[in-house]
């Protein structure tokens, strides 16, 4: 019996806190089971920065708050057959999208940056400048959910989703048996 080729998985953290990647590791020793079925391509876990092959599954944490996020996300879409958003940031912008609430300003982005770096009550920024290194990607006008930028195939809800849900979703997807989530597993109240 020939061994099935392993599925290739790539992951990226966009405008997220890395908590979802931590949750990915939270599947504990089942990681060993999983590694029998998959190999990781581009991912912070492997420190591979570009796609070496086309991938079966791309996993995205975080939404898009800057141009680089958009660039990476589009790259993932073009190089992955299935794209999965994990966590509320990827699904709807999450915590970073709180800045979208600055709506009644003529310059919401400026107002946001000034509060974050200059005028905020708890800021100790001795330079009194907003960081503007040429290597910093430009911010977007708003924080966007991934599905606003590319088509997403699946979303795993949670902040962060539990290791169990991530493991079960990935393994059933790999087995071609994913039929949606059990209600209790994605209930958070």
């Amino acid at each position: 019996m020939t061994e099935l080729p392993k599925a290739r998985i790539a992951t990226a953290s966009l405008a997220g806190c890395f908590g979802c990647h931590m949750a990915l590791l939270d599947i504990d020793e089942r990681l060993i089971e999983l590694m029998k079925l998959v190999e990781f391509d581009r991912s912070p876990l492997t420190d591979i920065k570009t796609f070496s092959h086309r991938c079966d599954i791309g996993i995205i944490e975080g939404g898009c708050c800057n141009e680089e996020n958009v660039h990476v996300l589009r790259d993932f879409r073009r190089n992955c057959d299935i794209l999965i958003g994990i966590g509320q940031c990827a699904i709807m912008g999450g915590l970073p999208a709180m800045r979208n609430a600055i709506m009644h300003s003529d310059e919401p982005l400026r107002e946001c940056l000034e509060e974050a770096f200059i005028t905020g009550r708890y800021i100790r920024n001795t330079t009194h400048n907003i960081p503007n290194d040429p290597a910093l990607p430009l911010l977007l006008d708003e924080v966007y959910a991934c599905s606003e930028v590319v088509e997403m195939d699946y979303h795993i809800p949670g902040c962060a989703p539990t290791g169990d849900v991530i493991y079960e979703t990935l393994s059933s997807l790999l087995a071609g048996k994913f039929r949606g989530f059990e209600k209790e597993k994605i209930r958070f109240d």
Partner: protein
Amino acid sequence: MHVTDTQLTQASNWPDVVGICETYANDPHRMLDILRAIQDRYRHISQEAMEVVARQTGLSKIAVEGVASFYAFLSSDPKGRITIRLCDDIVDRFAGLTEIVEAFESELGIRMDETSPDGTFSLEYTPCIGMCDQAPAAMVNDVILTHLTPEKVREIVARLKSGERPEDLISHRFDELSPRERADRMVDGNIRHAGAVLLGPVPEDAGLKASLNLTPAQIIDTVEASGLRGCGGAGFSAGRKWRFAAETDAERRFIICNADEGEPGTFKDRVLLTERPHLLVEGMTIAARAVGAREGIIYLRGEYVYLRELIEEVLADRRERGLLGDRILGEDGFDFDIRLQMGAGAYVCGEEGALISSCEGLPGEPKTRPPYPVTRGYLGFPTVVNNVETLCHVARILDRGSKWFFGMGTEGSHGTKLFSVSGDCRNPGVYELPYGHSVAELLEMAGGEEAAAVLVGGPSGTMIARDTFDRKLTFDDLATGGAIVVFSRERNILEIVEYYMSFFVHESCGYCTPCRVGNVFLQKAVGKFRKGLANQADIEYLRDLSATIIETSRCGLGMTSPNPILSTLENFPLVYSAMVKPSKDRTRATFDIQSAISDARHLAKRRSYIFDRDFGE
């Protein structure tokens, strides 16, 4: 806030506020009347005034503030001595609202939502004021102005600036005119077709007299047998509603007439209140006898304040003639009187629970049902809430008999109905027709044959396209509280939908999150379609979110608010699909990176190393 002694003494600096409260016996249930009177007197309700009201009525200040902040016609900031409210419904927009706004703004030197520095003028928008057949229309304090043009606006402002009162714009002899004459000078009747029941000749109090020969139970049987269904929109059997109220054990019962007429495009109650006020009160009196109520309320929308005196005069006249008050028509134990309750600019107050809250002096929020008003309504007592037209029908049914009424219309929809037709047609106005006519037939009468779309039942109703104009105006096919809004080929369906969603956003009472927030999202999503930024998934999103709002809202407002979207998705699918941008390589063509980074480019004063090709050149 803790009220100190000095603040209490300050209350005595507000003798008028104390006086106003005393006029209403310091009764917290009359809060809306008290606050309306303060608003009229001071052009706003100040924090100090609220404290005085709280003290007089024994409520907390926050409770008073809760009511004062709920209604559009009450304000905590001082409004101009002359407040001009322009109807900004889509009908008025299509009738030239933009030019009217420009004329007011340039003549008054203020923008919309502003008050002139000398405190003379305020300029505001307000949703449909029930003058859709004579748009563009506006309220200037309590005066209604219709058929506005930029020239008229210039003349109006000049005269107001020269010191004339808004009333003088109607007639220099305004004070000498009767209430009916005043109403007629302000507003056209526009009765285009009189039917057999309401708008044709109507004998005086024949129904009331006939009801004296019947027992209360027989009256209810008659009304039920006539097939009369509520004309306010929901279409509940009037007779059954009365029976429930009559069967509930209670010390007091109430009859409330719903004259809130807030559904955009509806103005048939305006015509009945002007032309048939006696018939309405007669109907209420019959209802009172049937269910054993001694007290009644007419809840008149704030926008119809120009009809207040007319109705007060009718009530006074009937009291004098023994048709209202104790021992009506000399009958022992037949006691019934009515008070007029003015609203203050809130669409949701037409919903019967909210209307009752409003009459009780509370913010106009719907109540959780059950219990229904027929068992626990006004002040907790069994209450019948009926629409103006329903009650007028009752009086005629008692006169002519249930068979006569039942014989008109169609199976399940008996009798006649008033339709208020407006928009793109030659003969806007009110048509009384038996149920069962097709939309096409009504359009022909109204001179709207060219219509591309017709909104039946207002924004909470159904928008239909030419291919289904043969649909029937009945409860089983196209139900309507009366609104028929006609749109020609030139009109942009998505613009209409977006406006109506903004209406619901504005009018949601805010109690249910899906209605308060969901409608904002729906409106934004429609905006995306209009800008060509929608993708296929947005159509699903509209459907899903609409379903959630409908399922999880507490009152009819939320349950019907997605209808402009759902009915156009159903009947004008191409309007949406034509605006959808397909994805390329599964990346969204609707996401525009260039516009998303343009603010940051400007702020950082540099270009993008990813998306600007000439970067580094």
